[in-house]
């Protein structure tokens, strides 16, 4: 992290190049002035100092220069120090000559040793620098990868913005077209597939080799992430398509079953009559009544299927008007009572919950569907009561239809609004499993919500919420 933070502080370059020109200059200054300064400092005491001590002290600028600037400034320091050592401290003073052979040997030994030392120190320094650079490079790469992986959930765009900021660019983005001309553009490739181009935008000096390496590696990682995102996207699409397709198959199969059953009943009854030699009026009446029931079923089913297709195609437009629920509940309850005379329906509608915003026709259908659903559920139960109650909370009106029938199975709450889904106990030829799906479509079209829950003490509660009106 520290490296990246340091890079932010120096937006011009995110991987600091070593042995820059100013460092080299300092090294030469240290080499020359350092050697001369030591010579100047020791000169007054040259009679009392041993040659060995002087030679050791002259090694200080040599080592310093080679550590600061590498072998070359070190060798420069070695040459200057050797000259100063000879001229200033080896008799005869002031000249570059040797009074005694041992002074020549001392001079040569010092020169050789200082050159070797500066060379070794320089090499060690270069290696240390190279290692440090490599470490900085790797750490930067780690940091970028870390950002990419941990912040991926926010999206690649957000990750790139953060990375660009950290590296001192104005922005970074993935473009579709391959603008590979700029040095700040990196092709995003996975294998042979070009996924896009990663482009860094900003006032940045030419990239160093190390910087280019880091960005190229980062680009490879971005390419993998993008590729994965695309594959995941494709996979989701495929899954969605598969599910839609399988739902359509089920819908088609169920619709065909529901349509064929009444047709089969009519065909069997009518052909039976046609095959008889004598027609008993009672039997004819019986058949006609069954035919009427079957055509009624067909009609209801066709209306429902058309509604469902209007909902699913998005062609359903709900009116937005003030609707008085009292006006709708009456006919809906009467219709259900007519078909299921045993069912007892009670209504508790709070005064402020009587008026909602929505489409009167659709709301009436929803109420009828929920009541019929409840009536079918309780028809074989001990408690045949159905309670409709409406309450208002803040701006919304909630209408609940509460029954004490067999209730919902685990998991029903989620799938009960799927077309043609039938609760096992409610399964009856009269309920094709479309009422709840259509109710959901209608309520959603009016901007409301619909749900199914368990009734405390047993049974099911279906509720929906619409915007209240004053």
């Amino acid at each position, binding site marked *: 992290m520290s490296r990246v933070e340091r890079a932010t502080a120096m937006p011009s370059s995110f991987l600091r190049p070593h042995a820059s020109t100013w460092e080299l200059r300092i090294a030469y200054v240290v080499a020359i002035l350092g050697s001369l300064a030591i010579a100047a400092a020791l000169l007054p005491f040259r009679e009392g100092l041993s040659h060995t001590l002087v030679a050791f002290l002259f090694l200080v600028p040599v080592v310093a220069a080679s550590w600061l600037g590498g072998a070359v400034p070190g060798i420069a320091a070695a040459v200057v120090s050797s000259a100063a050592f000879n001229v200033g401290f080896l008799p005869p003073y002031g000249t570059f000559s040797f009074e005694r052979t041992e002074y020549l040997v001392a001079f040569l030994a010092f020169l050789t040793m200082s050159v070797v030392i500066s060379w070794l120190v320089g090499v060690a320094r270069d290696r240390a620098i190279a290692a440090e650079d490599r470490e900085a490079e790797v750490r930067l790469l780690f940091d970028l990868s870390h950002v990419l992986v941990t912040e991926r959930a926010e999206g690649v765009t957000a990750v790139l913005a953060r990375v660009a900021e950290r590296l001192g660019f104005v922005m970074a983005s993935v473009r579709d077209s391959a603008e590979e001309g700029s040095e700040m553009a990196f092709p995003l490739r996975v294998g042979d597939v070009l996924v896009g181009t990663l482009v860094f935008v900003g006032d940045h000096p030419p990239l160093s080799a190390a910087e280019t390496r880091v960005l190229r590696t980062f680009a490879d990682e971005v390419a993998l992430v993008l590729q994965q995102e695309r594959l995941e996207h494709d996979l989701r699409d495929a899954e969605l398509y598969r599910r839609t397709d399988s739902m359509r198959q089920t819908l088609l199969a169920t619709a065909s*079953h529901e349509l064929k*059953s*009444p047709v*089969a009943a009519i065909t069997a009854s009518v052909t039976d009559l*046609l*095959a008889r030699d004598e027609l008993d009026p009672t*039997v004819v009446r019986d058949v006609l009544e*069954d035919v009427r029931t079957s055509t009624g079923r067909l009609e209801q089913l066709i209306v429902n299927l058309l509604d469902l297709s209007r909902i699913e195609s998005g062609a359903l437009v709900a009116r937005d008007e003030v609707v008085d629920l009292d006006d709708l509940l009456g006919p809906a309850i009467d219709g259900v009572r007519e078909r299921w005379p045993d069912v007892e329906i009670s209504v508790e509608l709070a005064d402020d919950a009587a008026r909602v915003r929505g489409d009167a026709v659709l709301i009436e259908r929803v109420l009828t569907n929920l009541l019929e659903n409840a009536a079918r559920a309780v028809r074989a139960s001990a408690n045949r009561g159905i309670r409709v109650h409406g309450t208002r909370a803040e701006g919304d009106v909630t209408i609940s239809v509460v029954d004490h029938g067999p209730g919902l199975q685990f998991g029903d709450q989620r799938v009960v609004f799927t077309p043609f889904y039938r609760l096992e106990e409610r399964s009856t030829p009269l309920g094709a499993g479309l009422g709840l799906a259509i109710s959901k479509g209608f309520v959603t079209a009016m901007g409301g919500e619909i749900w199914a829950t368990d009734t405390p003490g047993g049974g099911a509660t279906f509720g929906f919420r619409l915007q209240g009106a004053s």
Partner: protein
Amino acid sequence: MSDPVVLVVDDDPQILRAVERALTARDMVVRTATDGRAAVGEVADDEPDLVVLDLNLPHMDGLTACREIRRSSRVPILVLSVRDAEQDKVAALDLGADDYLSKPFGAAELLARVRALLRRAAPPTGGGRFSLEGLRIDIDARSVRRGSQTVHLTPTEWRLLEALAATPGVLRTHASLLESVWGVDAPDVEALRVFVSQVRRKIEPDPRQPRVIGTDPGVGYRWLIEPA
């Protein structure tokens, strides 16, 4: 002989009533059930002569009911289904159903299937004699004649004819025919097709529009003419 008892199983009240009405009017005693579990119970308790079973039932679907009934009873089962997918028919037949009828069906078709299955279940009556236009078939006498000419059948062709004529009007699946004609070393369905077309060429007045041996595509064949 007392009136045959037919158990009709369907969850659709209108279809149930239509079938019940059609069968009752033809001197059959009809019992009804609306789900698979009840049907299995009825078969065990009342031993009907025939079961008309819808495949799409609550509580226990028709295929399962079919298998359950076959565990303890050999009562003929006529399967009703709105699914006309072949695999459903084949699955039902594999599970022991004897014939099937796709909804919607006409009363005449229903009655023909019901009668065929009841007759098959009843002890055989009379000799296997059939006639259609100039064609005369006498199973017991092992003779087939067209007009004044004798039709010669190979032993295999004869076994095929015999197998089909033994159950007039009743569906014989490929598998059951292969077993009846060839036994355990049965060839494949393609060989059966070849033999059926050979027999048709020899006996049918118009082999392209068969009136003696009918085809149930993908499922099997059935003998179409009533005994004389």
